[in-house]
């Protein structure tokens, strides 16, 4: 069996190892496709259709995030049909969801010339924000059902399986089981769902509070990578610090230990650092 495949992307020939996805092939050929639900450390969910491309001989558009490249394929990333599909994907999502904290969706809309006005006035996913704990908040009006949180909570990393998509059609939504509050669910509060959410539908409580107060200022937030001080796994942390206070902890997605995933202590257990109980009071 051949170990590599050669295909054409927008007319340019590219040779890649067998098993490479079309999305990766397009990137390698320097004709990158936009994505929303795809994430470097998650199994593709094929949910958003932002990454569709045209493949010669294929009746429908193809989701490049999960279709494997084959020898001799001819792929087109920017035909009128592809552009139109992307544009409609963006327009539909903009009509139902709040994209305030969704840079990838905003980029897709801009690049595809999508108009937020086109489907305005229809049904939306607007709903009350769920603040049921002090670690993270669920603002599902912002959710685009990309499934990233479900993948991170499930077999890809956390293996907790606390959340799934519940309901059908337009009523589909992410749920922790029977509409329960998080503390009553199987959730272990690792926040790995928050880490991969592309729209701010899942957001750290501290960040959410500061944004509501108008005090979240990216310009003034410094980030420093360091290592977690709890157990001996050695997860890399990125500490986001505002006014000498840690306000958020993430982990670099390219780290070989954590792959961007943390446990509840690593992601949220930092308050002791700035606790008023510290030995020496702030002078």
């Amino acid at each position, binding site marked *: 069996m051949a170990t590599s495949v050669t295909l054409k992307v927008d007319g340019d020939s590219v040779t890649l190892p067998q098993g490479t996805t079309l999305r990766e092939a397009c990137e390698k050929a320097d004709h990158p496709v936009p994505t929303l639900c795809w994430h470097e450390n998650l199994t593709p969910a094929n949910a958003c259709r932002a990454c569709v491309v045209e493949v010669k001989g294929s009746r429908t558009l193809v989701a490049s995030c999960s279709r494997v490249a084959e020898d001799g394929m001819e792929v087109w990333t920017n035909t009128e049909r592809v552009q139109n599909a992307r544009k409609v994907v963006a327009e539909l999502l903009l009509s139902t969801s709040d994209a305030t904290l969704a840079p990838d969706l905003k980029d897709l809309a801009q690049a595809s010339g999508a108009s937020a006005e086109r489907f305005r006035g229809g049904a939306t996913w607007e709903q009350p924000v769920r603040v049921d704990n002090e670690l993270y908040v669920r603002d599902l009006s912002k959710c685009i059902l990309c499934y990233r949180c479900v993948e991170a909570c499930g077999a890809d990393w956390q293996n907790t399986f606390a959340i799934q998509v519940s309901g059908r059609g337009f009523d589909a939504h992410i749920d922790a089981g029977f509409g329960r509050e998080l503390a009553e669910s199987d959730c272990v509060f690792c926040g790995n769902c928050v880490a991969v959410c592309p729209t701010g539908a899942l957001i750290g409580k501290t960040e959410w509070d500061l944004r509501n107060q108008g005090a979240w200022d990216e310009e003034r937030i410094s980030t420093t990578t360091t290592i977690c001080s709890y157990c001996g796994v050695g997860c890399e942390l990125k500490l986001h610090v505002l006014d000498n206070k840690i306000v958020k902890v993430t982990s670099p997605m390219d780290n070989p230990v954590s792959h961007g*995933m943390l446990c509840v202590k690593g992601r949220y257990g930092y308050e002791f650092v*700035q606790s008023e109980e510290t030995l*020496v009071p702030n002078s």
Partner: protein
Amino acid sequence: MGLTAVFGTGAGTISYEDFHRSDFILLVGANVAEAHPIIFHHIMKGVHNGAELIVVDPRKTITAQKAQEHLQIAIGSDIALANAMAHVIIRDGLYHKEFVEKATAGFEEYAQSVKEWTPQKASTIAGVSAERIESLAHRYAAAPSAIIGWTLGITEHHNAVDNVLALINLALLCGQVGRPGAGLSPFRGQNNVQGGGDMGALPNRLPGFQDVLDPEVREKFSRAWGVPIAEQPGWDQTKMFEAMENGRMRGLYIIGENPVQSEANSEHVRHLFEGLDALVVQDIFLTSTAEMADVVLPARVSFAESEGTYTNSERRVQRVKPARQAPGQAQDDLWILASLARKMGHNWPVLSAKEVFDEMRVLTVNYRGMTYDRLEQEHGLQWPVPKEGHPGTKVLHERLWSEHVSPKAPFHPVPYSPQIEQVSKEYPFLLTTGRKLAFYNTGVQSNVYHHPRKSGEYLEINPEDAKRLAIQEGERVAVISRRGRVEVRTRLSDTLQAGTVFMTFHFPDEVMTNLLTIDATDPKSGTAEFKAAAVRLERLATKSAETDLTQTFLHQG
């Protein structure tokens, strides 16, 4: 200690990514899903790739619930199980004969030692059937690659090192070490346990596990540091406690530990500290231990306020950097130590963490090729990194698979020895201790953030035991050992076998679990038997009911 005795280096032999490609993962006394959650991610990658996951644990932990098979053995019966596995593997001729011949030493003696360990004999001790022991032995031996992982369920026993050696013996027997996807992996309980060992914070080792008994090693360090290196190893914790007891040790300087709450039989530890002439504590909080101190030195939070490195459980040395200003007069540990030395009349310069690291690189082959720049750019490096440009080492001891192996890896026959305290009429339950996912050790770090399920401490008890003792879910009971007494709420849990109860030590200000635990320590490692203390339970009942209830409380087993 066990790994050092066999392989010369006290570290896990594999990388986390080896779990992805292993065929068989055997976890013994390790609740990885709660105590090392991100390593559990790697283990589950392996499971999804087709590996078999077997968990040996007296509790049906979250980890055990994810495994294909859970062997719920009796507390402290690990050696019986391991020796019986070896018995079966040798009896049935399933061991890796070529590897044993070329790469190991002492096989005959070892084979002799496990001869008596029939699966039937082990079965009566461990409480799992002989058939399951045979099957486990067969599958471990037959797996193309297998990893054994363990943590405090193995090492917090009076015979900790023997427990570890029993597991290492199995790997040597089957050639399950020194190859990708095959090896031995102790998961380190605290973030820089491995780094402390790397730096020589062991009584008998200098940096890089270099032996203090080796005159050439001592000569090298004496020349570098300009002082003679003591010829005798220092004291481990057990010996220090003994020395405090008999008055030979009059002063103690503690950095970043809270032994008054974290050590077994903590009332005794408090008593020893009270008898000292001087106690100095360096910490970020005024812990219970710091409250007893004559002098408290305020330190900076290592991971967020100072420079340095940690080493993780796969030997990865990683950079730690300050992200915020420390409060008040808090200082770096390094600054405090150098300043103290100067006050004592030594001319120690205040060096940066990087300068100290560079000095250590010169003296330690394992670290020689690491630079702060490389650690930064490459997400850390796994030692040994003998020279710059070396990519680091994913799998240790590959040399065992070469044509001529020298030195060979020795088998260490180990005897079974039950836990020090047996259940009795007076103390009919075995208390075992461990961790919960959201909390950590004595809670100094983890009791500050707002976890939605801040449950506090509770005693987990098998529902049948609770029923017999008429204990209701949530009821407060007294737990009494030969050393102390605490009161705590109960929670019924079928994760425990009858006769076993479980507590954490995460909430010592509320319930001081370590008043109960036994300070029977392993003479080789100095670790106490946190995992097995005999206790009895008493309901906090009215006086009139007391006499009747006392009878009920005696465990029938």
